[in-house]
């Protein structure tokens, strides 16, 4: 059995992960915006006796990496010594993509160009002569449509054929000016005697990298006592001039290749460009985005309501039938109050979460999400947050964990820290059941609007946090925002449903393990010590709640609500699970909460605001520590969240008492 190591490389948002999923038959999240993949994903594909071990790299525009995700891609390409590189090129934007090709070919490894989205290129009036392109770049070119699996088998066969051709001399694609080639020759002459310090790079390519200012490579050679000609004697202005000459030569090469292989027959203005002038309009852009979000939450609440009602009726029926089975009273209490009351209650909100994921997938796949980042950039930039931060913030609506990992697309460390501290204020799907439950009980017809405003409050708090930290801690300006807007694509229900299912499945798995564990602990605390009434103030849960209750007295939270908050730290889903367990009884949680005299709209609103803003869950905290690499910043994120939650929940309650009464 032969094994071939394949790296999938390319610019952001050209369909690398879509091809990876197609090749490996797996599911990795894809989206119609740059920066979805921030670390390397591994998979395999078998073809006869050959196994392809495929790595999907984060997108990068060049090998001069600026952001952490680009560094990951660059390091894999330069140091992992794969058998072959497959560069995925967006057929609708060949020239820009070929700039990376000019760099990848210099590495000297076998390489293939997979020309993706040829169907869209054709629709746009772009005709590509693949044979001519192949001849010009000196690489095999395979036309594919990764999303439709077109051309994928041919690509696999080409990979197998080309992987064995390592070491074949290739005609250089880029012709550098004589001033540059003279420098390159001088550097190559010296460093070819020190190959052991060049990792896997050829001396020729290492020379180019040194002239471009590759600091780690230069440091390695200096450590070995090597004096690098030109580089060591250059003034900074000369280095810049060299970099400029090299880039210019690469752009010229890309342009030359494109001009004779690609023909734009219609020269049309794309409808995408025309629509963007309205959807990213300086006055209409933000209101249109807010309208989409408002409808998304109205749909989340309303469309899921019939299913949620059905599940509630089902779980109610099971609870009733448990009572007739004649089981041990403790077992009956465990099953009805603990399992059904806790896990069952959370499960009845699963339709809301699935619908929210479906809507977010539709927005992502259509390409609108990238526009949302663009329209928010002006506002966010003026408030001290990088416009690109908005995409991680929006991903936070699904789950804060991938959102924090998505900050790897940000270049400056200050931007990353500020965005990471702000992300926990974005309301993840796990908090949705709390809103659906309480808003449904206390705000009825206005529930969707209340949920919308909670999400807006989360966004505003995140932006306010960014502003504060930018002004008080990081005094530099956010780095400029440059993002390639992807074309609009009609989202298919199949792809959106697949995204929804995979994200929802993760939620269900968490629900099955974390929530079940959480509600067992809460049920045990509500049962012990033996002899006290279940869930009473005398139980351990009651004692715990009463201990912490004075802290939350200004917010009007009952001890049951306090216990829910304490266990919500494990995972936010446990808040509703805990309430379901503690308020366990014959009636449904909705009926019990509606009938609790200690609860009213003002307290419910304050509770929802507190749940929205307080401590991130354990998993999020772990990722914050991992990405920040500092306990200090993790502690700041934690403390800031609690402080903001308490203050804003208190203000909300005061205002709500004045406006809508208790």
């Amino acid at each position: 059995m032969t094994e071939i190591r394949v790296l999938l490389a390319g610019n952001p948002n050209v369909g690398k992960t879509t091809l990876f999923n197609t090749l490996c038959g797996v599911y990795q999240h894809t989206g119609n915006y740059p920066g979805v993949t921030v670390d390397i994903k591994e998979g395999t594909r078998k073809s006869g006796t050959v196994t392809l071990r495929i790595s999907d790299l984060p997108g990068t525009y060049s090998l001069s990496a600026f952001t952490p995700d680009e560094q990951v891609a660059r390091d894999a390409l330069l140091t992992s010594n794969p058998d072959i590189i497959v560069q995925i090129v967006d057929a609708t934007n060949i020239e820009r993509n070929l700039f990376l090709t000019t760099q990848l070919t210099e590495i000297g490894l076998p390489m293939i160009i997979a020309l993706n989205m040829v169907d869209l290129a054709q629709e746009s009036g772009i005709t590509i002569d693949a044979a001519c392109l192949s001849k010009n770049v000196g690489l095999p070119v395979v036309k594919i449509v990764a999303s439709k699996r077109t051309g994928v088998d041919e690509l696999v066969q080409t990979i197998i054929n080309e992987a064995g051709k390592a070491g074949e001399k290739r005609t250089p694609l880029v012709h550098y000016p004589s001033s540059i080639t003279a420098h390159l020759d001088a550097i190559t002459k010296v460093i070819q005697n020190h190959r052991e310090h060049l990792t896997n790079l050829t001396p020729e390519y290492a020379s180019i990298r040194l002239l471009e200012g590759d600091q780690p490579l230069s440091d390695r050679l200096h450590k070995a006592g090597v004096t690098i000609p030109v580089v060591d004697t250059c003034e900074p202005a000369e280095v810049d001039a060299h970099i400029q000459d090299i880039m210019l030569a690469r752009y010229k090469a890309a342009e030359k290749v494109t001009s004779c292989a690609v023909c734009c027959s219609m020269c049309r203005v794309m409808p995408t460009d025309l629509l963007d002038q309205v959807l990213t309009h300086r006055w209409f852009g933000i209101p249109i985005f807010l309208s989409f979000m408002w409808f998304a939450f109205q749909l989340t609440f309303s469309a899921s309501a019939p299913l949620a009602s059905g599940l509630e009726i089902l779980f109610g029926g099971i609870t009733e039938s448990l009572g007739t089975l004649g089981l041990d009273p403790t077992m009956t209490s465990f099953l009805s109050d603990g399992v059904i009351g806790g896990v069952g209650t959370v499960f009845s909100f699963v339709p809301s979460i699935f619908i929210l994921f479906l809507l977010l997938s539709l927005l992502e796949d259509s390409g609108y999400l990238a526009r949302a980042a663009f329209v928010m950039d002006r506002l966010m930039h003026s408030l001290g947050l990088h416009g690109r931060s908005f995409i991680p913030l929006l991903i936070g609506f699904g789950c804060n964990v991938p959102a924090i990992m998505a900050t790897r697309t940000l270049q400056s460390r200050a931007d990353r820290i500020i965005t990471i501290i702000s992300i926990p204020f974005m309301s993840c799907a796990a908090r949705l059941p709390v809103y659906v439950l309480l808003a449904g009980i206390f705000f009825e017809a206005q529930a969707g609007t209340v949920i919308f405003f909670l999400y807006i409050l989360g966004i505003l708090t995140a932006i306010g946090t960014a502003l504060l930290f930018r002004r008080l801690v990081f005094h530099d300006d956010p780095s400029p925002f440059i993002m390639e807007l992807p074309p609009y694509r009609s989202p298919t229900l199949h792809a959106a449903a697949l995204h929804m299912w995979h994200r929802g499945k993760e939620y269900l798995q968490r629900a099955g393990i974390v929530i079940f564990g959480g509600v067992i602990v809460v049920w045990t605390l509500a049962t012990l010590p033996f002899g006290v009434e279940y869930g009473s103030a005398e139980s351990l849960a009651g004692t715990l709640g009463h201990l912490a209750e004075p802290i939350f007295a200004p917010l009007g939270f009952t001890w049951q609500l306090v216990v829910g908050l304490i266990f919500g730290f494990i995972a936010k889903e446990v808040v509703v699970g805990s309430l379901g367990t503690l308020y366990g009884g014959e009636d449904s949680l909705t009926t019990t909460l509606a009938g609790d005299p200690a609860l009213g709209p003002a307290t419910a609103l304050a509770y929802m605001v507190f749940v929205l803003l307080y401590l991130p869950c354990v998993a999020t905290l772990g990722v914050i520590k991992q990405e920040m690499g500092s306990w200090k910043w993790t502690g700041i994120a934690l403390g800031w969240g609690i402080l903001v939650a308490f203050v804003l929940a208190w203000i909300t309650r005061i205002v709500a008492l004045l406006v809508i009464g208790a």
Partner: protein
Amino acid sequence: MSITSLPHKNLYVWTVVLTVVTIFGGILAIISGIGIEGIPVTPDVPGGCILLLLGALLATGLYEGSRDHARWVQFGYTGIILILIFGACSLIISGANLLSLMIEGEASDPVTLISSGFIWAALPAIPAYPGIRNLLFGCSQEGEF
């Protein structure tokens, strides 16, 4: 071809009608939402504001379209597509609410399905969509109308 020649003239006039209906629907939804009774539109203050936004979008297209035809098509197409998307969402929301009431055994009125301001606006938007879509794609190919 200019907006004064058929069929663009008809489409332009129809966009005027659509703009008026959208703004009117938005105002009624807001008035109904603040508690004034006897208005045949579902009370919905935020929804009313969105309808006013869409009306403003269409009105901007009409205003700028008198000087720059491409602007009319851009704003008109975007406004119409948003009205249709939001109209469909509104229909799903009303349908789901109706279904919930039926499941819970409460009184439900099927008329609420079509009493949203978005449905009012979506009805005249449906016949306008094919025309404006053709204009947009024609515009993108030829660079003019």
